């Protein structure tokens, strides 16, 4: 008996789920609610509950709620999720996903190996890092990726916001009434944020915009004291006590090299949420779906679960795209 067979047999002895859902943001939670209602035997593995929605500010575009905060909406999602008795592995990160010759999908986390006939990757996105010296050292020691969380701690202080898009300008707008002086460090020659935000920022008296500016290091002792910049070849140092990094998001798809991804590392999916590997589906911000919104991620999670249900019933049929009829 070869080793592979032994491993496979022990997998059979442990448990093969119908479905493993990776992530519990809006997409993963909605997929779970659908999977529970469809009676699937499934497992949810996730680092946290609520995903980016839980760290969002005010939400005014989730139908049914004219106004709700991100954490409140995430709490509603969690409540809905926990209404069903589901198997949930919280605070657990997935590090690999594979398929064996028999088509069984194995999901490896930091803690365990799990097996299933199908998987939905709904692991979302995370903040992009600057990758400069001092960034890791000073994280939460003046450097933060969450302006809405930590902004108020910088009352009366000089701060820098790194970025030039909507999330950066959103951070600036939150800080205008809190910080003493705000430097916007933008790597491009102009902002890419929405006009309305730019107009608000322009009239603020305590904001200085630095374009064509690249952060080269974060410096300090116990806490941040300054940032080093490279502005078109000229080195400049600015004294700040706070650094807000808002340079966009990257998909949490590193653990899934088995599926095709686009140049942004988003998992490529079709209109049934299928990746190019049969049995592996994906939903929400980790995918190449056109827009990244809470309501879209939730809808995508529902679609993915329904597709999985049909795939499990007739795997052969669903892999034949175009031949499948969805009710």
């Amino acid at each position, binding site marked *: 008996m070869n080793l592979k067979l032994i491993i496979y047999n022990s997998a059979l002895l442990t448990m093969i789920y119908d479905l493993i859902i990776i992530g519990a943001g809006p997409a993963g939670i909605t997929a779970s609610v659908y999977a529970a209602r469809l009676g699937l035997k499934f497992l949810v593995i996730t680092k946290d509950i*609520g995903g980016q929605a*839980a*760290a*969002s*500010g005010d939400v005014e575009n989730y139908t049914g709620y004219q106004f709700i*905060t*991100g*954490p*409140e909406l*995430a*709490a509603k999602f969690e409540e809905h999720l926990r209404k069903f008795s589901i198997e949930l592995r*919280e*605070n657990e990160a997935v590090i690999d996903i594979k398929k064996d010759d028999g088509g069984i999908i194995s999901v490896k986390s930091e803690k365990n190996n799990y097996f299933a006939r199908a998987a939905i990757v709904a692991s979302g996105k995370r903040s992009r890092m600057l990758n400069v010296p001092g960034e890791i050292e000073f994280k*939460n*020691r*003046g450097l*933060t990726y*969450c302006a*809405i*969380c*930590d*902004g*108020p*701690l910088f*009352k009366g202080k000089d701060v820098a916001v790194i970025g030039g898009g909507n999330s950066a300008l959103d951070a600036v707008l*939150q800080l205008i009434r*809190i910080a003493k002086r705000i430097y916007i460090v933008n790597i491009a020659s102009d902002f890419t944020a929405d006009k309305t935000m730019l107009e608000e920022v322009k009239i603020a008296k305590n904001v200085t915009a630095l374009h064509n500016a690249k952060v080269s290091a974060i410096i300090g002792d*116990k*806490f941040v004291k300054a940032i080093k910049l490279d502005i078109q070849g000229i080195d400049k140092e600015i004294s700040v006590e706070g650094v807000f990094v808002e340079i966009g998001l990257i998909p949490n798809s590193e653990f899934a090299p088995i599926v095709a991804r686009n140049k942004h590392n988003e998992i490529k999916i079709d209109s049934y949420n299928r990746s190019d590997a049969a049995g592996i589906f994906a939903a929400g911000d980790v995918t190449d779906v056109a827009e990244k919104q809470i309501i879209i991620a939730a809808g995508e999670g529902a679609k993915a679960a329904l597709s999985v249900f049909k795939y499990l019933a007739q795997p052969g049929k669903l892999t034949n795209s175009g031949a499948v009829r969805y009710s």
Partner: protein
Amino acid sequence: MAKSVKIYSTLTCPHCIRAKQFLKENNIQFEDYDVSLDQSRAQEMINKSGQMGVPVLDIEGEVIVGFDKDRIKRVLGI
């Protein structure tokens, strides 16, 4: 006897809101310090935790940075 629980938070911080919700759901009484309004409490939090991120929980002297649900449960014995 109930353990003394302090939470250093800001009104806008999502993880603070979730942490407080969690404590309430488990009927844990706590003192809430809004560090965006109270500079001396903000400094106290920074001294205790050696960092500036919120929330920070102080449960009978054990300092927990962030909404680390498992650790909070363990320290509170719930």
